[in-house]
């Protein structure tokens, strides 16, 4: 994208991470200056009065579906959605067709991201060949590839075999990798459809017990401690999981965790009408779980918000509940949901939002150019957000994602992403992509 590094911008009057008002001068792909009353002759000016400026958001958990399921999403459409959501980097999950379990596939995804140019695409490599949970994929080859993979995950499947999980955790230490675990004990969740609780029992849907998530997280925390390796826990969904991770962190173990926007806001009673837009894995849980997840994100037990953006074509959701696909889109609504669930409730200030949605996910994903302080010299990755906009009902039909399976459709959400800059170049201006 070097040809785009010529863009020069002066962002005026924005509140840096919700704090003081300042101007930001973007030039040569980096933040050239930050301060009051900056002047930059020749620069395009973005009047950002009243807006919050955040370091560009980083998503640790995105399904871009390419290669293999371009009816649901492509790298192009998914990254455009990401930019519109305020993201400057996304981690593309490995459960594509073919699976991203070789250097060839991760390089293909990385190149598609470069070509699209909306955000930096960081491919996630599969832990095991074909996500089958039997044999380690060539993790080192993926790490050494042009895609420089550092996050490995069988997401969608749990690395259930404890010995294989131990080996994976150990092996990636050689190249500072991290294993991102989809924590789901398979035997305890055979045929599982919805959080095991009052709602699932009444609806006659097979239960997905919280213990099936917590048991794997507890085991993996112990393995991370034993091996001194880095464990990242995907989409934490239960109060018990938060407790276990809090305990593991208190020991100083290298454990990090993410929570999705939907698990911060939605609960299992939404399944009452069997509307499959609410079918997701791990499932929507209870109000008590939502409260614990919010508290965990607030106190830092949960490091970051990750979307688990999971687009599906219409026909995959227009089915009986048990037949319908798991997953929800989330890139274009993530920051607005976080405002509603965390900021407007007083649980996080904007500086903490910057930490949970940019700084920490960039650190966990080993993405050097992102999550940097909004200070001179940092890469020009910036999100401008208007928290006073709206609230406005979400219209999935207007989304840039190819898919329409947003669980927030019709919900009134506050805020609006106004502009996004990737290395000093605008990808989004006035809520619209620039190309």
């Amino acid at each position, binding site marked *: 994208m070097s040809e785009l590094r010529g863009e020069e911008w002066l962002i005026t009057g924005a509140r840096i991470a919700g704090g003081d008002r300042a101007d930001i001068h973007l030039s040569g792909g980096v933040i050239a200056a930050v301060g009051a009353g900056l002047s930059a002759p020749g620069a395009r000016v973005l009047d950002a009065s009243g807006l919050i400026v955040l370091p560009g958001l980083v998503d640790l958990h995105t399904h871009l579906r390419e290669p293999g399921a371009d009816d649901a999403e492509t790298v192009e459409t998914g990254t455009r959605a990401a930019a519109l959501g305020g993201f400057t980097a996304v981690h593309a999950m490995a459960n594509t067709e073919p699976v991203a379990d070789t250097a060839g596939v991760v390089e293909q995804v990385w190149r598609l991201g470069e070509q699209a140019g909306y955000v930096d695409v960081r491919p996630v490599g599969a832990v095991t060949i074909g996500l089958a949970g039997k044999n380690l994929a060539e993790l080192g080859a993926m790490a050494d590839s042009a895609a420089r993979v550092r996050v490995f995950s069988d997401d969608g499947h749990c690395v259930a075999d404890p010995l294989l999980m131990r080996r994976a955790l150990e092996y990636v230490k050689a190249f500072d990798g991290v294993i991102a675990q989809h924590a789901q004990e398979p035997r305890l969740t055979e045929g599982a*459809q919805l959080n*095991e*609780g*009052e709602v*699932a*029992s*009444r*609806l*006659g*849907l*097979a*239960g997905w*017990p919280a213990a099936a998530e917590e048991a794997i997280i507890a085991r993996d925390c112990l393995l991370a401690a034993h091996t001194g390796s880095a464990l990242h826990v995907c989409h934490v969904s239960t109060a018990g999981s938060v407790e276990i991770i809090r305990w593991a962190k208190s020991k100083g173990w290298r454990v990090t965790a993410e929570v999705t926007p939907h698990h911060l806001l939605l609960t299992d009673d939404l399944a009452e*009408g*069997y509307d*499959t837009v609410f079918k997701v894995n791990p499932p929507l849980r209870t109000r008590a779980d939502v409260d614990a997840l919010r508290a965990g994100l607030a106190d830092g037990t949960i490091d970051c918000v990750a979307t688990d953006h999971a687009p599906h074509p219409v*026909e995959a959701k*227009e*089915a*009986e*509940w*048990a*037949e319908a696909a798991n997953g929800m889109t989330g890139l274009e609504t993530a920051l607005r949901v976080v405002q509603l669930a965390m900021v407007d409730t007083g649980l996080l200030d904007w500086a903490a939002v910057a930490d949970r949605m940019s700084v920490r996910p960039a650190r966990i994903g080993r993405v050097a150019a992102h999550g940097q302080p909004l200070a001179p010299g940092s890469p020009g990755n910036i999100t401008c957000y208007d928290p006073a906009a709206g609230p406005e009902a979400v219209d999935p039909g207007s989304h840039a994602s190819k898919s329409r399976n947003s669980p927030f459709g019709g919900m009134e959400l506050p805020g609006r992403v106004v502009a996004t800059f990737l290395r000093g170049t605008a990808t989004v201006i006035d809520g619209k992509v620039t190309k």
Partner: protein
Amino acid sequence: MKRHLISAADLSREDAISVLDTAAELASVAGRPIRKLPTLRGRTVVNLFYEDSTRTRTSFEAAAKRLSADVINFSAKGSSVAKGESLKDTALTLEAMGADAIVIRHPASGAPHRLAGWVTGNVINAGDGTHEHPTQALLDAFTMRQRLAAGGVGGSGPAGAGLDGVRVTIVGDVLHSRVARSNVLLLSRLGAEVTLVAPPTLMPYAVQTWPCGISYDLDAELGKSDVVMMLRVQHERMTAAYFPSIREYRRRYGLDMTRMARMPDHAIVMHPGPMNRGVEIAAEVADSPRSTIVAQVANGVTVRMAVLYLMLGGAEEAQ
């Protein structure tokens, strides 16, 4: 009544009693030389069955035909997109054929909800997965009222009566039973005191929140039951470790003659069928005079007639 009958909870107490009273009136049709009413002439009822269930399908078919409706039987085995036409496309096809009501049996919980979103006709749930089977609960309530409400001396209970104070014990695989779910909702709404009995492994999670009592001990409940309803237990539950063996299940939760003798004299034995004789119910119990199993089948037709009659607007025509 609501437009669709998907859950027993769709019925208010008044709705449910109205169905039972209408069924009692319609029962007299069964005794006539020509067992047909012209009420639904020209209306089309589709039986959309994704599971084999000859008894339920023929019951709905007989009910619709006795009301002079045109009946289309649409069998579709397997439900996934991969296996064939999607439920939505089938729904749109039936809609285009002019179905006034669709009676659906489906292995996936919630399939009738989905169907109701795609068609304009009435949807009647004839059993969906492990969710509900509301017409079974209605026919069970009708059978109870018939046998108990008049003091246990036979004949129909008084019109307008519920099941207030009737003690109903439902025994068996509650976890996987759509019959149990619908019965708990309907019978409690009609004033009955329902107790579920099962091994803990076959009790739904959070069953404490249901409007019923819970027990793991069948023998403790028999003496205080006006109705004992046995549920079918499937052999494959054993391999999934719900219980150790059929033999142990029978010993702890099966209804045999010894156990039946502990029931009050007026108490009845029910079973939604199909039975596993020798497993949850001994053959002698199933064939005893206290068993209402055959009456339940007969009542199924009249109760389903009443549901179709009330839902398809037959009420206005007839009155």
